[in-house]
Each structure stands twice: as C-alpha cells, then as structure tokens.
C-alpha cells in the first residue's frame, strides 16, 4: 500500500500535468479551483490521470456531490441545510468541511476541495 507521501507525489504529478502548474504550487493546503486555477473541464483530465496513476475507478458523484447540492431537500436560500451537511459528510468523509460549515453557501462548495482532500480521497480508494 502506498504511503501518504507517495500518494501526494502522484497526485502532485497529476495536477502539474493536468493544470500546467509548478510543483511547488501544489501544496497540500492549496485549493484546486482558487489556488491552482482548475476549471470544471480540468477535473475530467485530473480524474482520468488519477485513475491511471493509482489503478482506481473514480465515480463522478464521489467527488462531485451535485445531486445533494441541487436537491431542494438539502438546500435552502442558497445554503446547505443541517441535513444536507450530514449527507455531504457521509458522501465525502475524506473532505474537511469544517470551514464550509461556518457559512455553507452552495456557490462556495466548488472552491472547497484542496489537494489534501484529493489525497485523502485517493487513499480511501486504495
């Protein structure tokens, strides 16, 4: 089984390749969208590269819980409800949602994912 550091190195390589960023920009704390400039289409490439690098399959809904974020049962006035947050935590146990919980605006969710979250997700698949 790959160590956390090995996972990070492979994730870093995939992100450098997919996003055209420098090694040192891909820190564990960096957010995918805000810091690394990933656009929605880049995630196709990133997911493909991670699947190839780790020999895993990444179902889209595991990384992008769009169904929760667009479900009226879990969203009110543009914010994720307490039930919605519980649902998100269940779906994304590897993601650090503590900051998001403070003001869970749906529009901010896209910028939540960090490199470390991605590493933890990959580790959960190995």
């Amino acid at each position, binding site marked *: 089984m790959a160590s956390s550091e090995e996972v990070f190195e492979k994730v870093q390589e995939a992100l450098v390749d997919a996003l055209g960023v420098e090694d040192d920009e891909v820190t564990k704390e960096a957010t995918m969208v805000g810091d690394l400039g990933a656009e929605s289409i880049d995630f*196709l*490439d990133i997911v*493909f590269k991670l699947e190839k690098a780790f020999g895993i399959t990444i179902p889209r809904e595991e990384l992008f819980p769009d169904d929760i974020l667009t479900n009226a049962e879990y969203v009110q006035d543009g914010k994720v409800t307490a039930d919605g947050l519980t649902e998100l935590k269940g779906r994304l146990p590897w993601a650090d949602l503590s900051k998001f919980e403070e003001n869970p605006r749906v529009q901010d969710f896209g910028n939540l994912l960090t490199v470390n979250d991605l590493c933890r997700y990959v580790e959960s698949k190995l």
Partner: protein
Amino acid sequence: MRWYWIDRFEKFVSGVEAVTIKNVTFSEEVVYDYLPGYSHYPHSLIIEGMAQTGGLLLSQLEDFTQKIVLAKISKAEFEGIAQPGDQLRLTARLLSRQTDGAIVEGHVEVNGQPMATLGLTFAILDDSFGKDQFFIPSDLCRVLRALRLFDVGVDADGKPIQVPEFLASAESAALQAAD
C-alpha cells in the same frame, strides 16, 4: 470557408479509435501564407485536425446528436514540420468518456514517421448551452460521406456502422429540394 483539416477517414472503430489522412498541398493558403518563404502546414491546424478526428469519434457514439467542443489541449508535443507533398496520418484514441466530456489521445505521423503526440479534452455540452445543433444535418451527412467515415466505420464487433436515420432523411430531403 470550409474548416475541415482532414481529408478522409482511413479507419474508424466506434468508441475506440479513428485514423484520418491529411495531405498537405501547396495550393492551400495556410501552407503558402502562414510563414512566407517557409511553406509548411501550421501545427495549430494539425491539432484542429486531431480535434475533428477525435470529436467525430466521440460524436458518433450518440449518432452525431451531441454538441461536442474541444475544451482543452493538455498536451501538444511536435517534432518536425509537414511541408507540401507530405501526408499526415492522425490517430485518435478515446481514453475516457463521461457524461460531460471525454479525453482523447492523439498521435500524428508524417510520411510514416512519428511527428506529434497530443492530449485533448472535449466537453459535451448540455441544453443550458442552447438546444440548437451545431451542424445542419444534411450538410453534416454530406461531409461525413465525403470523409468516407461510413465507408470504413465499424462498431466494436466489426460490423459496419450505419448512417443515422435523421441524417439520411435530412440528406434525402435536401436532395429532393434541390431537384
């Protein structure tokens, strides 16, 4: 202006691989004018040709009904150039396909020698981008026939792929209207 940078399909295996040929000729303005005094076929158009090859490979999977655009060139490594009289062979392989996009790997040969490696990401647009099709069906049908896609195209089992009904009927209607 016609914006086709492939001449014909040489091979087409549905959902797997497509190979196209592009002959470079001095009579093309882009070859003559792109860099006066140094006639060659621009690399950017080789990428466009691969996008057309890979885009049609992807598009055929849903009978050419989806709106597919080149969203990202993740890799474009070239060695050498193509000049008048050269023949390019563009091979596009479909590596991954999701509901909203796909990844295609491209290899280009010039006169049988490796010339370029490409990585392309396509977006499959949903109705939020409008419901209109990108192409007039009768025109698209004529182009696909001219490119000989249906002459060489086979499905994963090796059976010839058919002209989709909506394209065939649009083509018939256009021909009747022209009579």
